[in-house]
C-alpha cells in the first residue's frame, strides 16, 4: 500500500477585515484512502494580535494515510471565524486546499470567500454583527454546482505543510 504523511501547521490567517480570528479545519478524502493516524478535524486557538494584521494559529496537522488509488486525493477545508469583544463568533471565510502531491515543504496561501447576503443582510451584519453561513458546508470543497451562490472575497489562510510519500514509486506513480 502506498502511504502519504502530511505534517505541518496552519500558520495563521491574514487580510481579513478583522484581526481577532480562529479557524476550524477538516480533512476530506476519497474512498480509496484510509486514515491510519492523526486527527482529521480541529479548531485552532483564537488569536488577537498585538500588532500587525496576521492572526497566528500555529496549529499542528499530522495525518498518515494509506491509499489504493490517486482518486480522492486528500483536501483540507477551512472555516475562519471572527471572535469579537463579546465572545461571539461570526464566519468570515470559507476556503480549501488540496494536500500537495509532491513531496517536500510547501507554503500554501489558501484564499477564502464568504457568502454575500441581500442588502438588508449586509446592513444588519454591519450593525448587529454576525454573518450568513452556508447550509451545506460541503459546497466549499466538493464538485457541486455553485451557480446560485453569491460570494465576497475574504482573506487568506496560510499553511506550511510537508508531504512524505512512501512506496509510490513501487506502484509506478510519479509525484
Amino acid at each position: 500500500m502506498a502511504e502519504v504523511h502530511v505534517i505541518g501547521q496552519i500558520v495563521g490567517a491574514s487580510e481579513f477585515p478583522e484581526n481577532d480570528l480562529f479557524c476550524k479545519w477538516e480533512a476530506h478524502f476519497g474512498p480509496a484512502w484510509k486514515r491510519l493516524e492523526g486527527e482529521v478535524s480541529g479548531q485552532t486557538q483564537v488569536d488577537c494580535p498585538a500588532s500587525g494584521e496576521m492572526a497566528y494559529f500555529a496549529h499542528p496537522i499530522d495525518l498518515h494515510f494509506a491509499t489504493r488509488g490517486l482518486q480522492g486525493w486528500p483536501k483540507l477545508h477551512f472555516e475562519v471565524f471572527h471572535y469579537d469583544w463579546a465572545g461571539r463568533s461570526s464566519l468570515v471565510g470559507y476556503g480549501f486546499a488540496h494536500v500537495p502531491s509532491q513531496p517536500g515543504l510547501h507554503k500554501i496561501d489558501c484564499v477564502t470567500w464568504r457568502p454575500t447576503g441581500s442588502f438588508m443582510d449586509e446592513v444588519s451584519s454591519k450593525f448587529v454583527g454576525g454573518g450568513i453561513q452556508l447550509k451545506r458546508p460541503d459546497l466549499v470543497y466538493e464538485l457541486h454546482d455553485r451557480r446560485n451562490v453569491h460570494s465576497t472575497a475574504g482573506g487568506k489562510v496560510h499553511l506550511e505543510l510537508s508531504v512524505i510519500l512512501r512506496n509510490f514509486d513501487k506502484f509506478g506513480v510519479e509525484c
Partner: protein
Amino acid sequence: MAAEAGASSFMLNVCGQIESVELPHYDYIFLIYQFVHGDDWERVLGLEEGVSQLSSKSADVRGLHAFAFPVEVTFKSTNPHGWPQLVVTALGTDIWGNQVVRGYSVCHLPMQPGRVTKRVPLFAPQSSSLMSKLQGLMQSEHPLYTDPKILGQGQGRQVTRVRSLGQMTLNFSTSMKNTRALGYQLLPGENFGAAAAM
C-alpha cells in the same frame, strides 16, 4: 554510506540554533525549549530541555534579543507520524520580580534534509475574562500553559485565547539516515525503488 539493508527504523539529526527573538515590549527574556513527539519516536542524543542565557534587549532601534542558543538533537523512529516539534517558552520577570511567561512558540523540526532559517510567531495566552485579567494583574499571576507540550497537539487548543506579539528566528541543518531504505520520499525528484534497484 550505504543504507543498512533490513533497517526498520530511521534517524533524524538536527543541529541548529535559536538565533534571536523580537519581543520589543520586554527588556529581559530567557528561553526554555522542549521537544514534543509521537510514541514511535525516541530521542537518542540531545537535551530533553534546554535553558538559555538571560538576554537584555539591544539598546538600538532593533530592540532585539540575540541568543545564538544551540539546539542539537538526534531522534530515532519507525514512523514519520508524530514528527518532533520544538516548543519554546520565553520567560521574563515582572516588576515584583516574579517569573512570568512572555510568550510561546511551536514549530516542527524540518522534514527535509538541508539548511533552513525559520521565523516563528510568539504568542501569550490571555485571560478568559476581564475580571480574571484584572485579578491577575493585581496578584501578579499571568495566564500560562500548565504543560507547554499541549502546543504540540491539535486537541484542546480551541478553548485558548492568545495574543501574538513577537517573532523568533531559528536555523536548522537537518540530515537523515535510512529514510530512503524504508521507502520514504522526502523531496521531489527522488526516483528510487524498483528502477534504481536494478
